[in-house]
Structure formats: structure tokens, C-alpha cells
């Protein structure tokens, strides 16, 4: 199937020129992506990645290391509307985190492509609900085409170490702590 240049490679990023190594670099690879930091946009970015991959017909799965919010969040509603399966922790704390982590481990061992979002995993690890070593061992061993996206406010250095892509969402400007959260934007 013929592809136009934009399809083959997106030139939206001025840092990427035809001289960049990506042109000669081979092939696809499942990436480990970490979005962390104190700024807005981490969860939004995971939603964006899911949307993209879903648009390409790839298998996508969302897992959030938190108990479900009631009423459902905008992200829950959006994922449902998109037809993307989403899992939460069944209960707060280590038991809940371990239960969800087992689901993630299973997904990684079975599904060899697409995107798996592990929202808040970095924080669950920092809370001590899961051991860093257990998490990094599984994530590092993924050699399929499955992209794994991990978020949290502060990712442990061991996770940064093994990640392929890390962006730190830094709050440059924020609203007052007293401003109300906005439906459809913040949650």
C-alpha cells in the first residue's frame, strides 16, 4: 500500500530532520514510556495515546492504580464511549495494587502489540504497594511490540533508567489551589 511521506513519518517535530537517526534506524519496537511530574497532562497524554492506537485498530487497554471514582470521571466516560476496556484497583492499598498488577502482567505476556496504560503505577510503587524490582523486571522483559505507558507524580529512578521515553510534565503556570476543577477539562 503506498504511503505518503506524512504517513510514513510525521514531520510535526522540528527536532526531527531527514538527517536524524530515525530515518536509518530499523523497525518497530515496544516502547516503555514514562510521563511524570507535578504538571497537568499526564493522564490526558495517556488518553491521547490510547485514542491514536485505537484509531489504528491496535489492541489497547487502560489500567488505573486507583479505585474507581464515583460518579465516573470524564476519562472513564470517554474510554467507555471509545469502547476501550479500563480496569481499576478493587480496593485501596497493596492488595488492590497487586491484584491490578497481576492483570497487567497477564496482559503483557499475552498481548504482543498495541498500547497498555498503567496510570499511576509509579505512585503505587512509591507508596510501597508494589516492589520497584517486581515492576521493573516485568516491564524490562517486555520484548514484544506492546507499548507500555506508565504515569505518576514521581517515578522512581529505577523506572526512569529502563524507560525508552521519559517526559517530565512540569507546571510552569497553574491556577490557584482554590479554583474549582472544571468538568470535562480537569476530570
Amino acid at each position, binding site marked *: 500500500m503506498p504511503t505518503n511521506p506524512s504517513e510514513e513519518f510525521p514531520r510535526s517535530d522540528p527536532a526531527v530532520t531527514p538527517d536524524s537517526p530515525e530515518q536509518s534506524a530499523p523497525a518497530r519496537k515496544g516502547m516503555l514510556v514514562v510521563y511524570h511530574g507535578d504538571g497537568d497532562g499526564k493522564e490526558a497524554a495517556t488518553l491521547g495515546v490510547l485514542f491514536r492506537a485505537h484509531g489504528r485498530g491496535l489492541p489497547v487497554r487502560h489500567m488505573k492504580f486507583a479505585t474507581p471514582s464515583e460518579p465516573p470521571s470524564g476519562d472513564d466516560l470517554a474510554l467507555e464511549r471509545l469502547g476501550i476496556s479500563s480496569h481499576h484497583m478493587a480496593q485501596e492499598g497493596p492488595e488492590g495494587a497487586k491484584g491490578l498488577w497481576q492483570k497487567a502482567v497477564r496482559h503483557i505476556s499475552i498481548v504482543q502489540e*498495541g498500547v497498555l496504560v498503567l496510570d499511576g503505577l509509579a505512585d503505587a510503587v512509591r507508596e510501597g504497594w508494589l516492589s520497584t524490582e517486581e515492576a521493573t523486571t516485568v516491564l524490562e522483559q517486555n520484548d514484544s511490540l506492546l507499548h507500555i505507558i506508565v504515569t505518576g507524580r514521581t517515578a522512581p529512578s529505577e523506572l526512569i533508567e529502563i524507560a525508552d521515553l521519559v517526559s517530565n510534565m512540569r507546571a510552569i503556570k497553574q491556577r490557584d489551589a482554590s479554583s*474549582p476543577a472544571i468538568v470535562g*477539562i480537569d476530570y
Partner: protein
Amino acid sequence: MTESSARAGLFIIHTGDGKGKTTAALGLMVRAWGRGKSVKMFQFLKHTGARFGEHRAAEKFGLSIESRGDGFTWLSKDMDETTAIAVDQWERCKAAIQAGDTDLVILDEATYPVTYGWLDADDVVSTIANRPPHVHVVVTGRDAHEKLVEIADVVTEMEDIKHPYRDQGIKAQPGLDF
């Protein structure tokens, strides 16, 4: 988390050298759409008619993403045309913002045409500053113009800690990067 009656539209900027700026804007679009809000994304630079994952998904779910650009902007030999495309796209953005019937208007990669001077920065700033009060606007791209940052409510810098193209020579991945 209560809804305020004084609630007004936000102006949000995603800037910085790291990855995730457009991606997070897409997420905001999807989140608002999940709440039944009306949303529109306008992309600068990206090829007119680009068929990235986001365009395919948008088409499938009836969301609007309009791309207008020649895709090779910084290599363009015909800057007049590149500028004209950006100006034309900006006019569409402006109309969407001012009409007030779209809750969230996203101007993806819009920092570049402002920085390069293809668009009048003052026009962009005053259009956003004077928008209908309920309209949210998101601008993405590196090196956001200081006048834009000044009027923004929320600015997140996506800081590049590790970048696979630069660090490992890995190619952009369909479904992840585009």
C-alpha cells in the same frame, strides 16, 4: 470538585522539548468529548489530509481534527505558500473560537507559526484573550511565545528527560507517536 457558576474557559499551553504535548491535547479533547462537550482540533504544519492514528480515530467517532500544512515546513522552498497555509488555518481557528459554539478549541503546533512570524502574535493573543468566556483554548508546540504564556491560565512544560529518537535512534512508532 464542585461546578462553579463563575466557571470560565481556560487557556492552556503545552510546551517544552519533550514528547506528550499534542498527545495530552488529544487526551483533553477526548475527555471533553466523553462529557458530551463540543470539541475541535486544528493542526498546523502537519500535512493537509494526514492520516495518523488520531485522524483515523476522530473520523470513526465523529470528532473534528483539521490538518493544514505542507508537512515539511522548515524545509519548505516556498515560504510564501507555507505562510499562506498557516494564515488560512488561523482564520479557521479564529472563526471557531469567536463563534462560541465549540467548548474546546485546540490549536496544535500553533506556537511555531507565531514564533516564525507567519501569524501576527498580537492578533493571536487578542483573539484568545477576548474569546467568549466559556470557550477553552489549548495551544501546543515548543517555545511558546511569551505573550501567549502571559495570558495563559495553565502552562505545562513537557521536559525532555529521555527521547528515543535522540538517545537510541528509534523511529517514531505508529499508534504511539502518530
